[in-house]
């Protein structure tokens, strides 16, 4: 009971830190998912809908990147953005933008692979049908995008889920700076390390609630698009 009370206090209490953490988490997850979807879905359609010589190699490469450990992605982005790195002049390290870049690196291969697998199932039939009415080349892309609009929402949602739950890369490039780059996962890790388990559990519950809320909203949207 004490635990529940302290969780409520923490969530609805006067301290703005949690709301700040939620805002940073949502901002980072939203932009990283958006960029990954904008890059990954068209690339996934191109990969899944076409047969080209290097397709097996590209597929293998994407699948390899699927298994990229978040800390490795974090390390790469860290080295690129650090003061002595090639993009050091932009001073992005320990900012939300750096966290978004690391997340994009992690989520885009996931979106590409999921999209390519999805589209690949009916690609031959769609291509043949479109060719039959004179729609070939890049013009096909539009029809794949419209036809798969509903399952694409699920892929985007899965990408968002990955983004909001990730901890290794964002810790490395974001630095878990209070009021600046602290997100739910890095805060949970920090509180656990400090032995403040109530605080950590409260954050975990909030993370699940936020995730549930977003899933519910997107599912409603998905239903509306499906009924359209």
């Amino acid at each position: 009971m004490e635990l529940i009370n302290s969780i409520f206090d923490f969530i609805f209490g006067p301290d703005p830190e949690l709301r700040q953490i939620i805002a940073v988490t949502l901002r980072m997850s939203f932009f990283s998912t958006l960029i990954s979807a904008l890059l990954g879905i068209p690339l996934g359609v191109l990969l899944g809908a076409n047969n080209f010589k290097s397709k097996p190699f590209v597929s293998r490469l994407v699948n390899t990147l699927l298994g990229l450990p978040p800390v490795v992605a974090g390390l790469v982005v860290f080295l690129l953005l650090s003061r002595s790195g090639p993009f050091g002049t932009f001073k992005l390290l320990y900012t939300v933008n750096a966290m978004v870049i690391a997340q994009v690196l992690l989520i885009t291969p996931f979106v590409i692979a999921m999209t390519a697998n999805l589209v690949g199932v009916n690609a031959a039939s769609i291509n043949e049908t479109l060719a039959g009415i004179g729609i070939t080349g890049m013009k096909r892309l539009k029809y794949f995008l419209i036809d798969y609009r509903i399952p694409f929402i699920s892929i985007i949602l899965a990408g968002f889920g990955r983004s909001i739950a990730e901890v290794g890369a964002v810790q490395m490039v974001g630095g878990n700076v209070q009021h600046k780059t602290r997100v739910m996962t890095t805060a949970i890790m920090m509180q656990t390390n400090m032995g403040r388990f109530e605080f950590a559990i409260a954050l975990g519950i909030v993370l699940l609630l936020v995730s549930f809320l977003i899933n519910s909203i997107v599912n409603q949207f998905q239903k509306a698009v499906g009924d359209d």
Partner: protein
Amino acid sequence: MIELNDLIVQAKDRVILDIPSLRLTKNKRYGIIGENGSGKTTLLRVLAGTITPTQGQIKGIKRDETMGYLPQSPYAFSFSVMRNISMAFDHSKLGENQAREMLKSVGMEHLLHSVGNKLSGGEKQRLGLARVLAMPREILLLDEPSSATDIRGTDIVEALLQDWFARSDGTLIFSTHSPAQALRLSDEILFMEKGKVIEQGDPKELFENPQQEETRSFLSHWRL
């Protein structure tokens, strides 16, 4: 004249189409018959340009908007039937009224606002035909256009093709598993077996007096 010369299509090491020479005159209707796996679909795909032959040449066929091709299982997109038809107009000046007319011609006007991928196999086939015929075509390549339709649907498809041919003076090349349909719709029949055109000729003559043993054997299975 559509000419095919020394045409070979290989799938891995197996030859699935082998046509040394074939001449198809324009403004005629050709029915392709033969057993499963005889090469009918491959021939239509090569003509449509959806597969590239391993070797050989095809002359006299333009792969542009003047050619329409209907695959055996046309894809119906997950948007309205209306939009499924009008997508053929995206690059032309024709509009939605024509799409409505096309749907009417395949007996599917009542399904105007249904979702394409929720249709039955036969409805998808009729939708596919309506979509292909929605634009003016000079050459029509149809892979078993009524394989999934019921007898009423088959009647609609055949009437539509007869009407199209009468109006357009185009070239119709279609495959079918029904010798009776080939007889009804063709000016000339091609009998295929094992990737080769075994016999080509007038439907009545070919059915009554087949010259090749393979054709005789195939037609011996035909019952009313």
